[in-house]
């Protein structure tokens, strides 16, 4: 990026091209960007400089992205500098971003340039609404921001200031201020930063502790090695020896880690015998895989099967919910998350909204079939059941109720829901094996489609219908050589958009040629 062209050693047309120190702060409303701006202004004023800050609070205050801008410069010959109200792209000394995508935004605005800018950013994420509302994974790629920082910033100070703030208690603004002090990007001595904050804190030193920690962290020359290397070994759940042996004997090495997790999940869902069922089914998938020459594909079909078979078998039913909510580990986790101290009392309230469907789902299949023939009775039941129920988990009545429902686990295999799930699962497996014979990748994609089914009640029903439509569309194009690509596109369309409009569009396209 450095400009290598030769310049004649001529002075500029005018004198003094000396410019003020400029600082842009990108934050979200509520992150204390205004406070930080204030500190920097007073810091500069305390050194006898003229400082000017501007911002556009307005509606951006309400959690939107916003920018604060500061310029400062010493007065000269009794003249005050004329300071700009907006940052000029390509001419900003320090950019501070209180969140990682905001750092990305500052780069997009051209505020970070390799000849000038020190970028101080927290690399934690606060997800934007668009990242949250997709019916699946839609989180922006932080790696892209990190890469861009690598090429555009003259200097970077990037670490998780949010975590540091949580650790030391305080607003992220104090962490940014500490990092700024450490950066040396402003011509003021670090003690002046701290002195300002001391004057600010009036006895409360939480901001100061955070400031010190951030300053220390920012001045560390090499950051500690990142823990999340891509090759981290997957967790190895404890398994009954028999099941572990089966995995080692029956499955290829590439699939074993996933299968171990899968077995653990279904055993946790039901019992050890269910784990055998899982391995039986997986053996079927693997046999088909071998027959289709899966060795050349590192047995991807088997591994994918191991993953989604576990989801299919450990379906989300009422019994499962009650089981999870009554475990000792659940309360421990909540206590830890919320930070409940031992001298405090914790109660939780559950928001259940059962319908006749869930009740009938728990009933033995024969009963449910009998009820199916009596819709008026089902309606009557629904009228009595279908309403919101707030249950205090840790009360004698509430806990006993949940405990009893969880206890129905023993009868689960005889239930209507189980019968429905088994039928669906078997059809899915059969279809995957059928497709595998046609086209290895398509077989894998059919297994992947299981991902579309999730959620409860209406959400679950919508997921099922998306799954059905994707599977139907796959049937239309299964003979094409690029069938697997299309299957993947269909699935991604279904995951990215809750309304189903994207999926409709993709299906229309397929209908136009298939």
């Amino acid at each position, binding site marked *: *990026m450095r400009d290598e062209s030769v310049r004649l050693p*001529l002075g*500029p*047309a*005018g*004198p003094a091209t*000396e410019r003020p120190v400029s600082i842009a702060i990108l934050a*979200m409303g*509520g992150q204390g960007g205004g406070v930080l*701006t204030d500190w920097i*202004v007073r810091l500069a004023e305390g050194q006898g400089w003229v400082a000017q*800050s*501007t911002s*556009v*609070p307005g*509606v951006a205050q309400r*959690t*939107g992205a916003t*920018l604060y801008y500061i310029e400062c410069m010493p007065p*000269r010959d009794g003249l005050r500098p*004329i300071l*700009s*109200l907006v940052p*000029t792209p*390509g001419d900003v000394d320090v950019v501070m971003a209180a969140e990682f*995508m905001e750092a*990305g*935004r500052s780069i*997009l605005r051209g505020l970070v340039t*390799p000849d000038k800018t020190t970028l101080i950013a927290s690399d934690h994420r*606060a997800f*934007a*609404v668009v*990242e*949250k*509302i997709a019916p*699946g994974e839609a*989180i*922006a790629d932080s790696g892209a*921001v990190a890469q*861009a920082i690598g*090429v555009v910033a003259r200097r970077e100070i990037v670490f998780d200031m949010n975590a540091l703030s949580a650790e030391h208690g305080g607003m992220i603004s104090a962490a940014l201020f500490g990092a700024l002090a450490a950066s040396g990007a402003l011509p003021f001595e670090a003690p002046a930063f701290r002195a300002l904050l001391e004057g600010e804190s009036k006895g409360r030193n939480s901001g100061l502790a955070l400031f010190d920690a951030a300053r220390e962290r920012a001045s560390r020359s090499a950051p500690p090695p990142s823990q999340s290397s891509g090759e981290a070994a997957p*967790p190895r759940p404890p398994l009954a020896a028999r099941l572990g042996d089966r995995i080692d004997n029956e499955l290829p090495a590439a699939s074993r880690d996933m299968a171990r997790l*899968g077995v653990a999940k279904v055993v946790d869902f039901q019992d050890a015998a269910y784990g055998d069922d899982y391995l039986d089914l997986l053996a079927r998938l693997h046999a088909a895989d071998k027959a289709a020459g899966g060795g050349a594909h590192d047995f991807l079909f088997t591994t994918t099967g191991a993953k989604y078979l576990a989801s299919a078998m450990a379906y989300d039913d009422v019994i499962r919910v009650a089981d*999870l909510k009554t475990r*000792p580990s659940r309360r421990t986790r*909540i206590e830890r998350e*919320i930070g409940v101290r031992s001298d*405090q*009392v914790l109660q*939780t309230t*559950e928001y259940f*909204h059962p319908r006749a469907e869930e009740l009938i789902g728990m009933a033995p299949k024969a009963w449910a079939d009998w009820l199916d023939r009596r819709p008026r009775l089902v309606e009557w039941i629904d009228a009595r059941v279908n309403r919101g129920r*707030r249950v205090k988990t840790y009360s004698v009545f509430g*806990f006993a109720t949940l*405990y009893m429902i*969880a206890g129905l686990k023993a009868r689960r295999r005889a239930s209507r829901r189980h019968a429905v799930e088994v039928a669906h699962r078997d059809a899915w497996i059969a279809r995957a094996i059928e497709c595998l014979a046609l086209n290895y990748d398509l077989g894998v994609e059919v297994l992947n489609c299981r991902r579309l089914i999730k*959620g409860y009640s*209406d*959400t679950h029903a919508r997921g099922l219908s998306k799954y059905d439509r994707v599977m139907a569309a796959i049937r239309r194009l299964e003979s094409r050589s690029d069938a697997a690509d299309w299957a993947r596109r269909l699935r991604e369309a279904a995951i990215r958009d809750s309304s189903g409009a994207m999926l409709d569009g993709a299906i229309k396209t397929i209908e136009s040629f298939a």
Partner: protein
Amino acid sequence: MAERSFAREVEDLRLGDGDVFRGEGILAITKALLQAGVSYVGGYPGSPISHLIDVLGDARDVLDELGVVFQSSANEAAAAAMLSASVMYPLRGAVAWKSTVGTNVASDALANLASGGVTGGAMIIVGEDYGEGSSIMQERTHAFAMKSQIWLLDPRPDHECIVDMIEKGFELSEASNTPVMLEVRVRACHMHGSFRTKDNVRPSFTIKDALENPVRDLGRIVLPPAAYEHEREKIARRFPAAIEFVKRHRLNETMGPGNAKVGIVLQGGMYNNVIRALQYLGLSDAYGRTQVPLYVMNVTYPVIEDEVADFCRDKDHVIVVEEGQPEYIEQAVNTALRRRGISARVRGKDILPMAGDYTSQVLLNGLRLFLEESDPRLLGNRPPAPDPAPVLALAEVKRLKEVVPERPPGLCTGCPERPVFAAMKLVEQELGLHHVSADIGCHLFSILPPFNIGATTMGFGLGPASASAFNVKAGKRSIAVMGDGGFWHNGLTSGIGNAVFNRHDGVFLVIDNFYTSATGGQDILSSRAKNPRRTTNNSIVRAVKGIGAKWVRQLDRTYDVGRLRDTLKEALTTKEEGPKIIVASSECMLNKQRRVRPQIDAAVRSGARIVKERFGVDEDVCTGDHACMRLSGCPSLSVKKLDDPLRDDPVAAIDSTCVGCGNCGEVADAAVLCPSFFRADVVHNPNARDRWRQRVTMRFVRWLQARRERAGAAA
């Protein structure tokens, strides 16, 4: 009363001779009004001038000492009409609002005021909400000044200059019997700077004096034939008087070398950015010592033609730097020069962009082009100017465009309006899409994801009125949304009264959060707080009933999503004729937290038994379908990736900023979403009963858990 205290800022209003004020531009303006000896101040809050209203609202003692009347007006028209106190009496008065929206509302009163003219100085502070970060349509207040002949001041963004122009502005108003507008842009309003203060001035002639000694003059009332005379008077007397005053007091400034072939004519507000652009070109230093002559118009209307002519006479080229469109000043400069036969070529928006902010970057490009075409030698060896283009062209940066998500403003954590829109979304799922007229206020964020509700917004309080054409029998009814702020601003008459009178069958939803929250949480008629200086607690429901509405439903807890949904459904389907009005009320969470949190913390510290609520998600129950977020968008409800290779999609997670409003649970219940949400109640300083109950219950719980553990081990 706004839950934020402005006590510290109020202290600044007391600064006296020789003290130094340091702070925001809009607060410097507030102080300047008191230094100028105003008798009364009014206005309507809105960015960027809200703090003027806020601070004066808290400055009771200061105002009482000075005998100044302060009012937070019902709307901008009411504020403008307040200036009529200066028509007959030598009273200085000022009003403030967000512009152009506020000026639109006020223009009826402003036109009448400007026609008859004023005796005392009348000043309108307009916060020009133009450019990046603005929340309104992009227009100029300049047109209003010209059409009604109100002088327009546009001071350099410098506290000293702005404060001086306020003092001079009042004198100008009095010297020319004409109201004056002071235009300050958003960033200048929020700009931190300093100035040397003077003592406040107690007006010698007070409101009380005026009330006790009434005066009238038929000649000042806008009614023919006086109205015809007003127009003549504007041209014959007031205009020349203003020009004379501006010249004599040198309100406009000429800077730079006297002999040059080129020059720049600029609005005062553009000064700082112009200097920076010149600096990039090597034509000025950072202290404003420019090598290109500048004519800085701190008064942008009227254009002082003689001054413009003098500035341009010996120049070959001048450029007019004027932000916003159309280019009124450029036209006026052209007229002035052509009429005088001065040959300097006038450039402006042929080089500079017609629309948008004039940032330093934009001005750098424009002025460089101007100088290249008019006097290229000035540019010397063209020192390198900042240029982000090479960086923006990098593949890594281009890729970011696809990655970095938009982050528009949204409803705050725990906002009571969220459940209202969640309920509307549920109704939409059942009854289909409806035409929804939106309004101005926080609730306008409904138009964005995740709710995507609302088709138009026509102005503050005009949501219901903008549904008025949809008044036929049809398979669906229109829905109009309005906040309590808009309701009292004008919506009661323009919206509800209009619908009652014209027998509109639609649904009208008034969202009442006890404040004008979007402008900073000021009190209004229906605020629930007791305000010692204002009359609050006036019911919206009684008002709409009083105006003739029959089908009225009040819901006093918006978080009850199920009830809200059912009420909306009823309103959309009932056979009853006439407007269906739903008033959904819950306190603005931002203001509630400001009020309640310190109280709660103090109570906890003092050992009182306090229950703190917040929500949580059981991550192993959550399936990662995010249906809850499509009905929420709450900042504290987010997603988190699990360290589990078996699961693809991130699950819901609630962070520690949750205020326990209840929306998550209510929505999960009303929409029959999923059982992953739970509310956690933590009792701080529990009493003996709490502890005993937990001990007994947990003994029972652990016994059952142990029993299951054994059963599991046996299996």
